[in-house]
């Protein structure tokens, strides 16, 4: 299933552009106790154009995070492969050109905000660039908190630090695993608004895993809906709404229609997953 809506895409991302990151025929099976196994992913195929933001939504247990971990080089697929430009995720990791932000912000409590944003420099064995760190802190609205420790920050501020850290080395691919999933609704909406302008200025190719259809439609150029057991792409939606997608636009009919369509597809995917489980029981 493919669908598009609204006006032509504005900003740095161009839908339909040549594939930059390509996921081809990914399959993954996990072994369980007593010689049992679970098929987590089945024949996953999609690509991302340079500068495109693709969101993946799906029911719990559909393999979204496994997919992200494979793209991050943290898991090895049983079948298929991932290419970012000409590189594998492992090669990109070795070049320090992958950025990642998890739902658990994974900030180091003994470092300051500046230290956490600059951590990728230290882990890569590079000299930290204080100007870049200060600039990113300013972009995520934390310039006055550079010397604060993560414990002194709210949940939303910690996620901002986590995102600034993910992009400090100008990654070729940014992977976001439900970065706002643990935040309250108001903070989440605020961050969604703010992050749009951040991505617009950076133009980083991004894969966003999220549970929120609203968030996916608001932020992404395309939304992939996954079904579970095994995890697979159930539907794809092009989000051709103008940017910036501010509060007025998120209350508009085209936006709400798209949210409804993606939600309906997600319901289908969930029902399908449930049926497969029933059939297998």
């Amino acid at each position: 299933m493919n669908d598009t809506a609204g006006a032509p895409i504005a900003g740095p991302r161009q839908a339909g552009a040549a594939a930059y990151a390509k996921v081809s025929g990914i399959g993954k099976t996990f072994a369980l106790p007593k010689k049992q196994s679970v098929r987590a992913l089945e024949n996953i195929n999609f690509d991302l154009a340079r500068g495109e933001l693709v969101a993946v939504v799906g029911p719990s247990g559909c393999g979204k995070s496994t997919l992200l971990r494979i793209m991050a080089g943290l898991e090895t697929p049983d079948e298929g492969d991932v290419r970012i430009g000409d590189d594998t995720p492992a090669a990109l990791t070795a070049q320090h050109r992958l950025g990642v932000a998890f739902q658990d912000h994974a900030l180091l409590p003994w470092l300051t905000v500046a230290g956490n944003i600059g951590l990728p420099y230290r882990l890569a064995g590079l000299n930290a660039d204080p100007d870049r760190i200060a600039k990113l802190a300013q972009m995520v609205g934390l310039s006055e908190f550079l010397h604060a420790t993560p414990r002194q920050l709210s949940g939303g501020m910690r996620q901002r630090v986590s995102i600034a850290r993910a992009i400090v080395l100008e990654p070729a691919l940014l992977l976001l695993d439900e970065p706002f999933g643990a935040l309250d609704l108001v903070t989440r909406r605020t961050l969604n608004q703010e992050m749009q302008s951040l991505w617009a200025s950076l133009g980083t190719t991004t894969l966003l895993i999220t549970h929120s259809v609203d968030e996916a439609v608001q932020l992404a150029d395309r939304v992939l809906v996954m079904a579970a057991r095994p995890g697979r792409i159930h539907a794809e939606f092009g989000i051709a709404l103008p940017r910036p997608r501010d509060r007025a636009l998120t209350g508009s009919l085209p936006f709400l229609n798209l949210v409804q369509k993606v939600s309906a597809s997600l319901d289908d995917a969930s029902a399908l997953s449930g049926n497969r489980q029933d059939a297998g029981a």
Partner: protein
Amino acid sequence: MRRHCRAIARTPAHEQTKRGREDVLTRAIGLFIFLAAWEAIGRSGLWGESFPALTTIVQAFGTEGQRNLLGRSLMRTAESAAFGLLLGAIAALLLAASGNLWPRLRQGFDSLATGIYAIPIITFGPVFILVAGPDSTPMVLSALSAYFPIYVALDSGLRFAPPAQRDLASVLGAARTRAFVRVEFPAALPAFVDGLRLGAPGAVLGAVLGEWFGAPRGLGVLIISSLQNVRIPQLWAAALLCVVCSLVAYTALSMLHTFVQRRYAW
């Protein structure tokens, strides 16, 4: 944007102070009960003449000569125990770090650490008298007594570090040693200091035991000498100093643990 940011208030200072006072009070009550029971049992003669009252033991510190003897012995034992604890900590760090950097060898390091610790420490005495000499034997036996709890605590801290931190270091392409130094070891630092705290009394006992094997001085030497000369109050005075030495080390390391926990853990 900043107006939406809200710094989370930490536990109020007055509550921390109140909790700190309660801790001190609880410790003082516990210590008082311990000392009062000791005094009562000693005075009643319930456990015979070999267990004197505290007030009788305190008399062993009565003369300047006795005070000097006990003081010199304490300093010597404390020195051996401190260096032993340091040596044990280094050994534990090397073992745990090696197991972390080469996970396939972890079980081997684990068995090695447990196997050495399971050998009755007293059997090492004659070996180290020959190998390290009587002066260094207390320090070596102190290290042997202390390293295991430190190793277990640190290994546990490294194994159960937040997976997201490990994943982050991996995705950012950090070399294993760099990830260990920058992320994994600092995250496990509270567990490491916890191990030091647990290892401190063992380090004191190891030093005392090491002194039995012919060290020139120390509380262990004084205990042997007091036993041979049936100087019961002096024997217990030396034992009491061992307890004080352990308690001081434990308390100091507990304070360090509190600091490290606040700084390095969520």
